[in-house]
């Protein structure tokens, strides 16, 4: 198949592109919409909002999620908030400023036109969510409250206590539920997509496994939308839910969809440090805590005094010292690496010396304990439940952890991948966050794609389609079903001696050590040597108990890990190829004298989109140049 990387960015000034696109886009007649069936995989913010909105427009939708209910997708765990360029604070915010901040925060590696559109529709998202009954925080006058958030100098973040993701997801889930009741969406919970089906070069359906009875089924449609999130659990320990996985996007990659910038992974600076080997996941403490908390470590290495016993003179508020204008609100990648550096200097605190303090004493003194409790009460409770420590009376301990992945399937301006009929939205695509995502922008992007962008752009695709659907017993579907059955029976037949979790831990540790917060040619080559060995051993020695015909969590995990074991290699290949540092991708060879990321705009101001060529084959690189018409690329500085 000839691959074209046509980004389809409309011409004209960046501020007019989306209006112009909408004026000129082709529409589908209302009476014809119900003839088109769309598969939406994933029911998080992007998937649920897309499924609901497409159904409202009149399309027939099938929506799939592996959880027992669409309400449980991992978007639910987002704590801090959602950005929107409302300028309710009168503090100088605007669509342009949100656009610029996002481009700059992404270290000039995102697509300008997509980001401008994201900033434009951000204001509609808030209106939509308020109308749905999302209980955003309010002021005494009854109007919406805002706060500032990592990497921003204006207060544009809307929030619902520390549970913004939950409330936005429930809003989308309720909109989805309304459509399920109306019969326009058929929901398939506890059902996992295991392959994509392509007929005549177009995405025509998927193969799924019913997780309760193991039934393998083919589903045919006019288009497939992947809203399946990111791939942080390639590191095993991350802040993601246990079930988050790369399978849907990786399977699409193996069927010809290009995977873009997989090396852009975000390490979140404020997570609860690991307490031991048994750890199954890391818990995020919302970044909003950095608004009122000050980050510090002891000035001297090996100072093991209780934090409250260390006087001001013995403390190094290193973010305030290194980044005087942003201080504790420095962007995530800078804050994370700074934490790693002070711990590498032996100044870390807590078990294993991998932690830094986040101190609220000053804010409690200034605003009172009640105000801090109102803002972060649930987070402080959560912290105490996990660590047994009270953060009102002593500082929290935090450490960076994998959290979000900016890379994803390549999409054009219409959010369609290089495979016609395959759309990718939310964290699963690559386009909006560049090399680093700003705080409170993930919720914004998921809902922008799902409520406002995809429902418009998908019509343009259908308007050019004359073909009906293929029956789900068409040969391509049968063949894909057989392949899935074979994959499962091969796994069950191994009957080895090591558990799936054991392999996953090994892969995760390798990725964290060699392809984590700081990468080098040497560490990446070591990872690339080792990953295929782990993969080979997995396929010879993994132990999966239970049957294929029942609920079998061990088998589910093995299927997901099998894909991570191939995907990890792609991530490392991309990281090795990108000989520069930018955003979340930090190559030790490329840094300024101050230890900041050193970009190479001449050679790497482009999207690296990889094409699959077979297992153990080197993928083929396709390049999309990033052309900045509006913004001038600058060296990022948060000093």
């Amino acid at each position: 198949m000839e691959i074209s990387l046509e980004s389809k960015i409309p011409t004209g000034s960046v501020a007019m592109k989306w209006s112009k696109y909408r004026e000129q886009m082709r529409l589908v007649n209302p009476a014809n919409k119900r003839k088109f069936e769309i598969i939406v995989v994933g029911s998080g913010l992007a998937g649920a909002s897309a499924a609901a909105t497409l159904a409202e427009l009149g399309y027939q939708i099938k929506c799939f999620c592996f959880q027992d209910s669409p309400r449980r997708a991992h978007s639910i765990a987002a704590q801090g908030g959602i950005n929107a360029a409302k300028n309710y604070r009168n503090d100088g915010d605007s669509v342009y400023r949100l656009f610029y901040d996002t481009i700059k925060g992404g270290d000039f590696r995102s697509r300008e036109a997509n980001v401008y559109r994201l900033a434009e529709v951000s204001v509609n998202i808030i209106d939509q969510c308020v109308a749905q009954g999302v209980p955003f925080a309010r002021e005494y006058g009854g109007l919406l409250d805002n706060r500032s958030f990592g990497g921003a100098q204006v207060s544009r973040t809307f929030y619902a206590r520390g549970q913004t993701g939950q409330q936005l997801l429930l809003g989308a889930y309720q909109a989805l539920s309304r459509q399920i009741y109306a019969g326009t969406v058929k929901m398939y919970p506890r059902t996992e997509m295991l392959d994509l089906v392509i007929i005549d070069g177009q995405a025509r359906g998927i193969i799924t496994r019913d997780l309760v009875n193991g039934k393998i089924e083919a589903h045919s449609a006019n288009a497939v939308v992947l809203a399946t999130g990111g791939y942080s659990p390639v590191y095993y320990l991350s802040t993601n839910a246990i079930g988050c996985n790369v399978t849907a996007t990786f399977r699409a990659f193996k069927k010809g969809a290009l995977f873009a910038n997989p090396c852009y992974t975000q390490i979140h600076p404020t997570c609860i440090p690991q307490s031991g080997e048994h750890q199954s996941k890391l818990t995020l403490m919302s970044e909003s805590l950095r608004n009122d908390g000050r980050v510090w470590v002891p000035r001297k290495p090996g100072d093991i005094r209780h934090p409250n016993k260390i006087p001001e003179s013995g403390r190094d508020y290193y973010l305030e010292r290194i980044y005087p204008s942003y201080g504790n609100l420095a962007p995530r990648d800078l804050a994370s690496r700074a934490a790693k550096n002070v711990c590498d200097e032996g100044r870390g605190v807590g078990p294993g010396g991998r932690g830094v303090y986040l101190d609220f004493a000053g804010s409690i003194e200034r605003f009172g304990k009640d105000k801090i409790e109102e803002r972060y009460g649930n987070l402080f409770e959560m912290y105490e439940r996990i660590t047994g420590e009270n953060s009102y009376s002593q500082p929290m301990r935090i450490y960076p952890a994998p959290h979000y992945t900016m890379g994803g399937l390549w999409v054009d301006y219409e959010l369609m991948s290089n495979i016609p009929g395959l759309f990718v939205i939310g964290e699963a695509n690559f386009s909006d966050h560049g090399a680093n995502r700003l705080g409170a922008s993930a919720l914004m992007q998921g809902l922008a794609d799902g409520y406002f962008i995809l429902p418009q752009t998908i019509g343009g695709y259908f308007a050019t389609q004359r073909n009906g659907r293929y029956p789900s017993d068409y040969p391509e579907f049968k063949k894909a079903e057989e392949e899935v059955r074979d994959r499962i029976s091969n796994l069950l037949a191994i009957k080895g001696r090591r558990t799936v979790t054991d392999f996953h831990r090994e892969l995760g540790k390798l990725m964290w050590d060699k392809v984590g917060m700081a990468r080098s040619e040497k560490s990446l080559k070591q990872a690339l040597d080792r990953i295929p060995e782990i993969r080979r051993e997995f396929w010879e020695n993994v132990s999966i108990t239970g049957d294929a015909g029942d609920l079998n969590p061990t088998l589910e995990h093995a299927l997901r890990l099998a894909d991570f074991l191939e995907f990890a290699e792609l991530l490392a290949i991309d990281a090795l190829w990108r000989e520069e540092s930018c955003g979340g991708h930090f190559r030790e060879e490329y840094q300024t004298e101050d230890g900041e990321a050193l970009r190479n705009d001449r050679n790497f101001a482009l999207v690296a989109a990889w094409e699959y060529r077979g297992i153990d084959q080197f993928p083929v690189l396709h390049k999309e140049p990033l052309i900045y018409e509006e913004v001038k690329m600058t060296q990022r500085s948060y000093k």
Partner: protein
Amino acid sequence: MKLTLRVWRQKNSTTPGKLVEYQANDISPDMSFLEMLDVVNEELIKRGEEKIAFDHDCREGICGSCGMVINGRAHGPLAATTTCQLHMRSFKDGDTITIEPWRAAPFRIIKDLVVDRSGFDRIIQAGGYISVSTGGAPDGNAIPIPKEDAEKAMDAAQCIGCGACVAACKNASAMLFVAAKVSHLSLLPQGKVEQDHRVLNMVNKMDAEGFGNCTNIGSCEAVCPKEITLDNIARMNRLYMRALLSDS
């Protein structure tokens, strides 16, 4: 720590289940309850046995996936805590812990500790929303909402749909779950428009799904990990009566 576990094992919904005893060794007090089960499961797999199935996902107390009855109490001994946020420091070395699934007729057991809670989804589908389609919403600040009302709505909206309330109720009533959604939406001006219709449809669906009636014992409130209060049930009852009267 060393513990003795008595765990409900059931192959699938058609096969009868029973309590099976396991030893959990080398348990650290810093482990979460689910991490303790992970350790036991790794041992089971190494012995060639099937692991204990339980629902879990975010492991930070917000997705509502996990839930088991621990020593007779939904989500275990700590107040306002989901199973995944319970840590082993709440137990003592040598303890025997009995672990069972949610037991309620409308929650069919799928396997071991995993139950079918799709009845909750169907109740929400019957009316747990504000009927606005995407596009055309007025400005977010067009309708001021008193902070107090917004906070109360948020208190109710925190429900994670875990089902502990049903598991704890001797009548397997879903009143706290339904009341949380009815309250959340009815406390906001946007949600008042459809409130009569909503409460009638949701309550009727709850009954049709086989959930029992409320007899005001309050076990649900006691086990709710998100501290949804009984006032919500009182509010729903008022709204329901009002809707019935205005309907007739």
